């Protein structure tokens, strides 16, 4: 971390050592800091207010989720994944269930698939809303937080009505769904779609053309598509850098190939583009939800899965497009009821790598903006 020139294989533009180099400031941001979204600790090396380099210290929220998996059966482990990215618990569940289904070689019935897609996309919107609120709060706009939380509440209400839980839903089961959609589920979802569309315009009214917002986000935390790929960055961050990569289109899982939607991409790879990409993604999610609600077929919601799951010996990697990027599950089965090893590829963890690169030469205030724009959840980073 000491010499910025030898640090990264990527061509970094090292800020020139200016002003008082005798007085370089090392600041410890976090783990108790209002803008680190949990318990991230960032060690900043500052020259005045310019960031010369930074180092993330993680692990404050480590609970050993992957290790726990080795002592749980496949079914028992299902709720644990919700605790990783707790703002997008449904997506986590979807990835895990699909991975195990792939291992077991079963497929969830179409009705279950549709409901899964609806809930996952709702969760994507909820996750983006939470991101928007906190990101705007970090940049100093306090009002969007309350607007987004007001609207996110409606999504959580649907979750609550569906499965009884709001945050860590445990909505899906391996092989399909535990619960049939409740009476009026479709109506609720449709109402929500109509309710939230003008609300997204409302957020945009507050921010998109706001002069200060533009100045705070344009050109901040730039990262090129090449660097994104080199660092394994995925999700909206990658797409905002101009790489059209969305697993829902690239490796369609669930039944995403049945739906029409666009993959928004940015050009500059700066914070503003990431904001725009996420805003469009929310709208696209609504589009998917509308199509899915229209087309929910009748039928069973659970495939034939053995009561005691003993997947064949082998290994599987399955990844989905979680709100924050590629969420992958690598499962090794030894033929017993418990997985031999589960490795999660969490998008937040991988995306966090890019923080140093994105913050070099920026100001302290931009570090906050960049942490916000990366949309990390520490539960997922530390697992």
């Amino acid at each position: 971390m000491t010499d910025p020139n030898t640090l990264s294989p990527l061509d970094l533009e090292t800020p020139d050592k200016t002003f008082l180099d005798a007085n370089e400031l090392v600041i410890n941001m976090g783990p108790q800091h209002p803008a680190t979204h949990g318990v991230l600790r960032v060690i900043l090396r500052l020259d005045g207010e310019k960031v010369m380099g930074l180092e993330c210290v993680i692990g404050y929220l480590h609970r050993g989720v992957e290790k726990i998996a080795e002592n749980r059966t496949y079914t028992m482990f299902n709720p644990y994944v919700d605790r990783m990215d707790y703002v997008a618990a449904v997506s986590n569940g979807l990835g895990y269930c699909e991975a195990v289904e792939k291992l077991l070689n079963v497929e969830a019935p179409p009705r279950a698939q549709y409901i899964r897609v609806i809930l996952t996309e709702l969760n994507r919107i909820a996750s983006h809303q939470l991101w928007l609120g906190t990101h705007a709060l970090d940049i100093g706009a306090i009002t969007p937080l309350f607007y987004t939380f007001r609207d996110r509440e409606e999504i959580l209400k649907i979750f609550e009505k569906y499965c009884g839980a709001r945050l860590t839903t445990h909505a899906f089961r391996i092989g399909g769904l535990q619960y049939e959609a409740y009476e009026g589920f479709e109506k609720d979802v449709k109402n929500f779609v109509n309710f939230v569309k003008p609300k997204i315009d409302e957020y945009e009214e507050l921010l998109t053309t706001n002069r200060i917002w533009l100045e705070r986000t344009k050109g901040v935390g730039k990262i090129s598509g090449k660097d994104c790929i080199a660092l394994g960055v995925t999700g909206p961050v990658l797409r905002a850098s101009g790489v059209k990569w969305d697993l829902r289109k690239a490796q369609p899982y669930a039944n995403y190939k049945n739906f029409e939607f666009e993959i928004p991409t940015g050009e500059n790879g700066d914070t503003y583009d990431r904001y725009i990409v996420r805003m469009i993604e929310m709208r696209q999610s609504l589009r998917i939800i509308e199509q899915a609600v229209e087309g929910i077929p009748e039928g069973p919601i659970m495939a034939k899965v053995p009561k005691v799951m003993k997947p064949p010996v082998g290994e599987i990697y399955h990844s989905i497009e979680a709100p924050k990027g590629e969420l992958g599950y690598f499962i090794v089965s030894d033929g017993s009821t418990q997985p031999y090893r589960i490795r999660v590829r969490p998008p937040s963890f991988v995306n966090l790598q890019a923080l140093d690169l994105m913050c070099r030469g920026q100001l302290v205030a931009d570090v906050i903006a960049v942490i916000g724009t990366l949309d990390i959840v520490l539960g997922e980073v530390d697992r």
Partner: protein
Amino acid sequence: MDAMLHISTLHYLVLGAALFLLGVIGVLTRRNVVIVLMSIELILNAVNLNLVAFSRYWQGIHGPSALHGQVFAIFVITDAAAEAAVGLGILIAFFRNKETVNVDEVNLLKW
């Protein structure tokens, strides 16, 4: 006692002289450049006090608009601002090179 109670120009002059001497002592004895600069400010202020006191005295003789002393005081304040800016600029350059603010270590013409 009457001399103590009636504040005349002389009182201000004595005060100015005292401040001036304090400033001189500071400049001559301190090693910290910042404090030396502050002592120079003290000296300039002592001068200002004299100027304004004399301006008052002059007004008594030549009428209300004889404010030359006050105008001079304003010029001195301008001068002090310029002096402080350049002095502190030099100080920063000095500190960057030597990592000290000790005036005794300014013993090279070039480094």
